């Protein structure tokens, strides 16, 4: 398995050889920021295209096929259109908060990129509370959404923001608990260690029943956390026109739009990390030849491939199911997912304590 840390260490050493310590750090930060932004926008472009094509297939349509070969440039054109649109400033809004909100939302989703296991030796920061950091920063997003709804001074956005607040705060519990279950199984919060612990077998297989339950709950809660269908109540277009981002235009709207897609990637990325071994290739104990072949596929392909496959499932939900109602959604969380999750945590503890895992 190619270790990307060889390249990163080489760059680090190269920079250190002719730069003082502080300048090296600054340069690296700028470089990483640049790469991150690039990855972010490229992924967003890909996801927009991907979702449109997938949903077209579900709906017996062709999807974008005019701009560029197979419509590949369609999302580039869309992005360009959003960039050149006017930022309409509205009367009677809280100007500062109104402008701040989209940045908070996009900041939250971008920060989570820092701890995703992109490949072998390819993550931005590696520290011992990686998962904790991830949960913490992804919660900032809800603040942005609440601010957006409130500062727009519009009844629809306010209702959308309130729904979103209730929804995200509730479902964060489920996400937290299912992540906790897997952290307990891995015995560490460090992202790298979690991935390496799955070298023998992915957690979804080795943790069998409790891991499976945790995975299902994580996927449901993750869909709710990203405000996607069937949990897209905050922006239910048939009820609230566009929910909390009704009043936004231009790139500010684009930020919400991008953040939604990127959160989709983040949620599937974290699911990949916790259940499907992050960048770890598919290994089965005893199948050495198979494992060897799997190792030939680069780790970054493994990670992005798995994340996209999981995103496909979430997209599939969205285009199949009708939307839930706010009370049904909250009762699903508090009456079903949360108790099951707590029970599952106990089950996982038993599995660990008695060594029932594979």
């Amino acid at each position, binding site marked *: 398995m190619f270790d990307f840390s060889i390249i990163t260490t080489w760059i680090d050493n190269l920079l250190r050889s002719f730069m003082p310590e502080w300048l090296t750090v600054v340069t690296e930060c700028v470089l990483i920021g640049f790469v991150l932004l690039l990855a972010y926008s490229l992924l967003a472009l890909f996801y927009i295209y991907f979702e449109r094509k997938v949903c077209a297939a579900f709906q*017996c349509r062709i999807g974008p096929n005019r701009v560029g070969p197979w419509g590949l440039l369609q999302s580039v054109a869309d992005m360009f259109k959003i960039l050149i649109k006017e930022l309409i400033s509205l009367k009677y809004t809280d100007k500062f908060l109104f402008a701040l909100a989209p940045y908070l939302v996009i900041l939250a989703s971008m920060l989570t990129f820092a701890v995703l296991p992109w490949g072998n030796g390819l993550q931005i920061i590696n520290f011992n509370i990686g998962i904790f950091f991830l949960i913490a920063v992804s919660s900032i997003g809800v603040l942005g959404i609440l601010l957006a709804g409130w500062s727009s001074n519009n*009844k*629809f956005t306010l209702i959308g923001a309130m729904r979103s607040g209730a929804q995200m705060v509730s479902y964060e519990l489920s996400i937290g608990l299912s992540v906790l279950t897997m952290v307990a199984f891995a015995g560490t919060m460090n992202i790298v260690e979690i991935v390496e612990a799955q070298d023998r077998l992915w957690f979804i297989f080795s943790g069998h029943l409790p891991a499976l339950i945790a995975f299902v709950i994580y996927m449901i809660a993750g869909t709710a956390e990203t405000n996607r269908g069937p949990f897209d109540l905050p922006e239910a277009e048939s*009820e609230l*026109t566009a929910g909390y981002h009704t009043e936004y235009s231009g790139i500010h709207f684009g930020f919400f739009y991008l953040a939604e897609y990127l959160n989709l990637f983040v949620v599937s990325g974290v699911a990949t990390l916790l259940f499907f071994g992050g960048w770890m290739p598919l290994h089965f104990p005893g199948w050495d030849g198979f494992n060897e072949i799997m190792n030939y596929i680069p780790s970054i392909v493994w990670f992005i491939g798995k994340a996209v496959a999981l995103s496909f499932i979430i997209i599939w939900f969205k285009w199949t199911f009708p939307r839930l109602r*706010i009370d049904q959604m909250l009762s699903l969380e508090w009456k079903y997912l949360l108790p099951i999750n707590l029970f599952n945590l106990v089950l996982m503890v038993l599995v660990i304590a008695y060594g029932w895992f594979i």
Partner: protein
Amino acid sequence: MAQIQDTIAKLFPEATFEQDDTLLVNIPDAKWHQLATQLKENSELAFDFLVTIVGMDWKDKMGCIYYLTSTTHNHHVSVKVTTDNREEPVLHSVSDLWAIAGMFEREVYDFFGIVFVGNNDLRRLFLSVDWNGFPLRKDYDENPALNPVSTDNERQTDFSTAYYENAEGKVERRVVRVFEPDDFVVNIGPQHPATHGVLRFRTAVDGETIKKIDVYMGYIHRGIEKICEKLTYPQTLHFMDRLDYFSAHPYHHCLCMTIEQAAGIEVSRRVQVIRVLMDELSRIASHCLFIGTYCMDLGATTMLFYTLRVREQILDIMEKTCGARMTFNYECIGGVMQDLAPDFVDDVKALLAVIPKNIKEYNKIFTGNVIAKNRLEGVGYLSKEDAISWSVSGPSGRGSGWACDVRKTNPYSIYSELEFDEVVRHEGDSMARFKVRMDEIVQSARIIEQLIDNIPEGEICAKVPKVLKLPVGRWFRTVEGCRGTFGVYLESDGATSPYRLKIAPPCLPLASVVDHITRGSKIADLITIGGSLDYIVPDMDR
């Protein structure tokens, strides 16, 4: 008929009777409310379904004709109440007896300025609050300077008026509030994806719970009834497809039958079969569109494409024969405009072959889905009594257990010879209304199956005089549109254009009942309920 006349004559000696296509009772306004109470509550009469209120201006008098039907005895009566006072016409309201009467009276007030004593919410219904004059009066001044096009914000008011009789019997006016001063009112519409057109719900909410809805109509009011008074009979037909644009065929059918009946024109068997085929094809298309858009409103966007696939096939069939994909001008007085396209029969058979497969698919994707069940079952309950009182006819009424299919209760054209079941469900919730439509597609397909191989030869249009004049008289006919009982009232003074053409649309009651059903539900349920009623805004606004 005679029995009804006897019963009424015994109770009200002052009543006089006329016999048109229905029995017409003349009653002075002072006795009207008493008569109405008897009509509704006397078990021999039991007229519980108010089909429509026709406002009339006879130049010397003004007044209303009430068309009533009994759902238990299936008999009909009409009552004529008049007033001589043109300056301040006042009649008694019956909004306490039939829930929908309040809305119908608002319409009459809007067009004729007749004040209804006892109606607690008498505002204009379609025209803007500061409109000058009452357009359907015969002495209405059409000078555009009186009602200039406003470029300001829309004028509106939070107040309504109620008229009541004080102790001395004098009519007094009182201002009533539509909403409480501290209500949080959300405007759902007029530009809103879920209202299916420019309809506006002023919704008072408490958190996510709905306290009251004020339905605000008239954004696409085109004054079709007024326009028709200046057109010749064949010309009036062309407005029927601008009402409920999905039931263009049944609506044309209704007006054609009314005019043909009045003029004494016989249509051939071939024409009748073609008309019924077209009616049923539009019913399938309309219900398919309903299922698709309804699921889309609930967030299941993909269903829309699956249902539109079938609808597309029907539109192709229509296009070949009628030359249009919407607003079909196909039926004409005496027959139809042109003969069926050569491959009509093959196309329809191809359609019939795919329908069962598609219905199965819809049920698999949506009807059985647990989220869909949670969203629909038990939501928006409408009891049978309320459905009748609010005149909620059509599939929505049949979802509440009210067997109100005009094709069965008062068969017209060749429906009495055809074999099909009336779909009635008793749950009364949104799911029942949804399933009724699903099953009606199957029944319509059954009707088409019976006819498609037996289209008789014959002329496609009877001989109709170039200048059509109807004899003096009045006619009222109803048909089963795609959304409910559609009625046309036609009064002729012997000229080439109607003296009054009143359209009784099914969608006005459907929209009016929204407030009644949604109280205490969530905002999301408003979409579920409104969607399940399936109103079409141009139909109610006319």
